[in-house]
């Protein structure tokens, strides 16, 4: 595909990197020359310095032949205007990042009227992800598939767990619940485990299971599952606002600590259920006084990475809470990985992932297109495909399929019924199939067979 990315910030750069790796032709447009120069020297893409809302610049970027335009500049209005101009200039799909909560309730109207293919609100997406994780505290990442009927759950195996030393094929019958282990991360290495793969403590493992089965599994595996009652959020940002709105529907006690008094008043007006504290959270006494020791979840989501890291480390030491740390600069991710910072929250990455998913689902040459895509990490992807008419693997038992290496079929959704497949199951037309793979860039179900 020919893709134009307007705005070469963190999100733009992540998108450009991933999409160009997948073989698309990328043109980036940014007003500043420095980011354009630096990105064109590391990636095989073209860069244009200029305003993305200028018709002339868009023509220069090849809008006439583009399939997709992604507007991810810092300003919502610029993004929308850019998409509007692009729509008038060509028939390409458009994606805009729109983050101002003011537009949030009207986003469907805007999308419809401006003929956008997609809008994305990074803060809202992040809040939704945090909400899922607060609801199942044992997992570090949860991604819904098959419209939420089955989930991909990622968690760490604690020391002295009964899972330590267990073979992957024994999981289901020893724990008496239907699930499939699909990815194991051990140190730097990532494995798609075969049946005889032996789990060890400290592995990070991803499983596919229905939500009910997942809860059973966590209980039987002895991975502690306390329902979260008390949540503390540091930093009254937009993410906090969205998250608080979502959590107010359940009976969770929420405390938001924010330094700016005006913002506190604003939040207090918006969120009657939450308690808003106006204080400097980096003050140890404030944290202790507000009861950090009794918290079940703690989220450091201020705008400063360094502050978030310190706060999370402190919370780790003084509580048993599940910890969320917002980190925007991922350049030092290998250092951060070694710190006990709990779950790393990165709105940029969330945005890039969603847009990537959209870009991939756009291509459907045979009708067997991608419906959902998640990047488990840089090396592994989980995808959900629709089985169209032209699918070659219909009706053949899975054990007889000659799959490409490093591909695992880990779930079949047949009209709402979830099948965690064994070798004897087979795929029918109309199914959606969940696949985990270390070969990134698949976009057709037929790509998985040799």
């Amino acid at each position, binding site marked *: 595909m020919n893709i134009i990315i307007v705005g070469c910030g963190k999100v733009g750069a992540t998108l450009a990197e991933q999409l160009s790796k997948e073989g698309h032709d990328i043109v980036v447009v940014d007003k500043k020359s420095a980011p354009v120069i630096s990105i*064109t*020297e590391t*990636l*095989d*893409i*073209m860069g244009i310095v200029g305003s993305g809302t200028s018709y002339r610049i868009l023509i220069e970027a090849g809008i006439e032949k583009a399939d997709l335009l992604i507007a991810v500049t810092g300003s919502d209005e610029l993004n929308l205007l850019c998409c509007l101009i692009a729509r008038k200039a060509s028939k390409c799909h458009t994606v805009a990042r729109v983050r101002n909560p003011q537009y949030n309730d009207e986003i469907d109207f805007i999308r419809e009227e401006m003929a956008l293919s997609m809008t994305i609100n990074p803060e809202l997406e992040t809040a939704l992800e945090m909400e899922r994780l607060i609801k199942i505290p044992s997992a570090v990442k949860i991604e819904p598939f098959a419209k939420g009927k089955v989930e991909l759950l990622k968690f760490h195996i604690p020391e002295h767990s009964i899972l330590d030393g267990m073979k992957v094929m024994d999981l289901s019958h020893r724990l008496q619940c239907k699930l499939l282990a699909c990815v194991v991360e051990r140190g730097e290495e990532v494995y798609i485990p075969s049946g005889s793969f032996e789990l060890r403590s400290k592995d990070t493992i991803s499983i596919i299971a229905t939500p009910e089965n997942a809860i059973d599994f966590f209980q039987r595996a002895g991975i502690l599952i306390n329902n979260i009652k008390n949540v503390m959020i540091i930093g009254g940002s937009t993410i906090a606002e969205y998250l608080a709105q979502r959590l107010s529907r359940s009976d969770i006690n929420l405390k938001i600590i924010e330094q700016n008094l005006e913002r506190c008043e604003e939040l207090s007006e918006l969120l009657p259920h939450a308690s808003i504290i106006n204080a400097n959270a980096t003050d140890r006494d404030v944290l202790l006084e507000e009861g950090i020791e009794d918290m079940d979840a703690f989220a450091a989501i201020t705008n400063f990475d360094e502050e978030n890291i310190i706060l999370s480390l402190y919370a780790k030491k003084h509580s048993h809470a599940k910890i969320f740390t917002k980190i925007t600069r991922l350049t030092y991710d290998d250092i951060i990985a070694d710190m006990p910072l709990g779950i790393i929250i990165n709105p940029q990455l969330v945005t890039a992932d969603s847009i990537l998913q959209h870009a991939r689902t756009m291509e459907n040459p045979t009708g067997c297109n991608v419906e959902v895509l998640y990047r488990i990490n840089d090396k592994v992807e989980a995808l959900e495909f629709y089985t169209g008419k032209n699918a070659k693997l219909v009706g053949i038992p899975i054990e007889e399929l000659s799959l490409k290496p490093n591909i695992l079929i880990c779930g079949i959704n047949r009209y709402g019924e979830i099948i965690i497949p064994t070798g004897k199951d087979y795929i029918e037309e109309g199914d959606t199939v969940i696949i985990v793979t270390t070969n990134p860039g698949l976009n057709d179900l037929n790509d998985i067979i040799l």
Partner: protein
Amino acid sequence: MNKYVIFYIIGWILNIEAAFMLLPSICAIIYKEKSVFAFLITIVICLFIGIPLSLRKPKNRVFFAKEGFLIVALAWIVISIMGALPFYISGQIPSYVDALFEIISGFTTTGSSILTDIEAMDYCMLFWRSFAHWIGGMGVLVFLLAIFPMTDGESIHIMRAESPGPSVEKIVPKMRTTAILLYKIYLGMTLLQIVLLLLGGMPLFDALTITFGTAGTGGFAIKNTSIIPYTRYQQAVVTIFMFLFGVNFNIYYLILLRKFKESLKNEELKWYITIVTSAIILISLNIGGIKGFFKSIHHAAFQVSSIITTTGYATVDFNYWPTFSKVILVILMFIGACAGSTGGGIKVSRIVILLKSVRHEISYLTQKRSVKILRINGKKISNETARSVNLYFVAYMFIFTVSLLIISLDNHDFTTSFTAVASTLNNIGPGLEAIGPMGNFSNFSNLSKFVMMFDMLAGRLEIFPVLLPISLGISKIKGHKLTLPR
């Protein structure tokens, strides 16, 4: 520094050179020439070194501008060393230094020859010499980029180092597609010229070699008297194609996209056309007077196109032209062709930027508070580009001066020495006096020949890729000295 990537790419370059040498081998077989063995031996040597290097795929393929420059400089040196072998092994050029001079002159599309009797050479040797022009014109590494999937963005460093012009950019987002497009345009125009020459009744071998020389803006002819023996029609075809190959290839891409308006708006192209037409008119008037204006226009046009595009073919011996015309030709030597073409020289766009900077400086002297921006094609020239153009010019003058000083040791007359440097550093071919279009470079000492080989490479790769390995080498030697125990 990522040495493995450098070795890996050099390995591939050797394999490609071996493949290229199959063509002159076929030529030798057709003409039943014994010298085919020289090519076969060289092919074996190339593959013997190239295959082991290219098989060791480096795990870490990330590299930066430094490696890019080094790869390009090394690749050009390596292909020249190997490319000279057939001449030497077959004994057609007895001295290896001469053989090296000849092939560097070929690859860099210079066209300066040390041969005293070109027609005595085997056909396959003449073919290889001319084919070297064609390979070197668009660049070996650009060719490698076209056939070789390098997915990383770093490949832009290679293209920047090899392609001429102050600011090299891709024409489409992907490096490989860009390289393929450039080669498609190059190949298309080459084929067109061959067909037009054949239609004019030129023998196939002549049509091929002359077209290779024109396409790469090289200038090796296969006759002692350059292009003089051919018909007027054939000369006119060569004139037009020399001019066309001196134009920035991006413009042809725009034409292919049917963006005619945009392609005509190009400022460099306008300047290029203006310079060429005014030079033709001035020379025609100078050599033919007002009466003989139209008579002399044919030869004036041929020589002007040949010199400004740095090809170096000739239809007359311009040594006998009046001084005014000769001076115009020398000026054209320095100006050179457009950026992004196959031609050499300083490049029209650099000259335009330099002149604009001068005007800018003058207005700054008188009005210190005025803020003005340098523009080309209506776009701002970044300070980076302006600075690099200025520095390029300084480095160019420096190399020119030092080369002239060393070559003057041979004690040729001033015009010969001066134009010898101008001709090699700008990749033209002939100069004036002893090295005029009918002369050759055989009378220079080996030292001078080495200096000129360096000049040819520096001219083709635009100086900095050639200077970088030297500066790295010097700093390495210095570094070793510092660590020596006292």
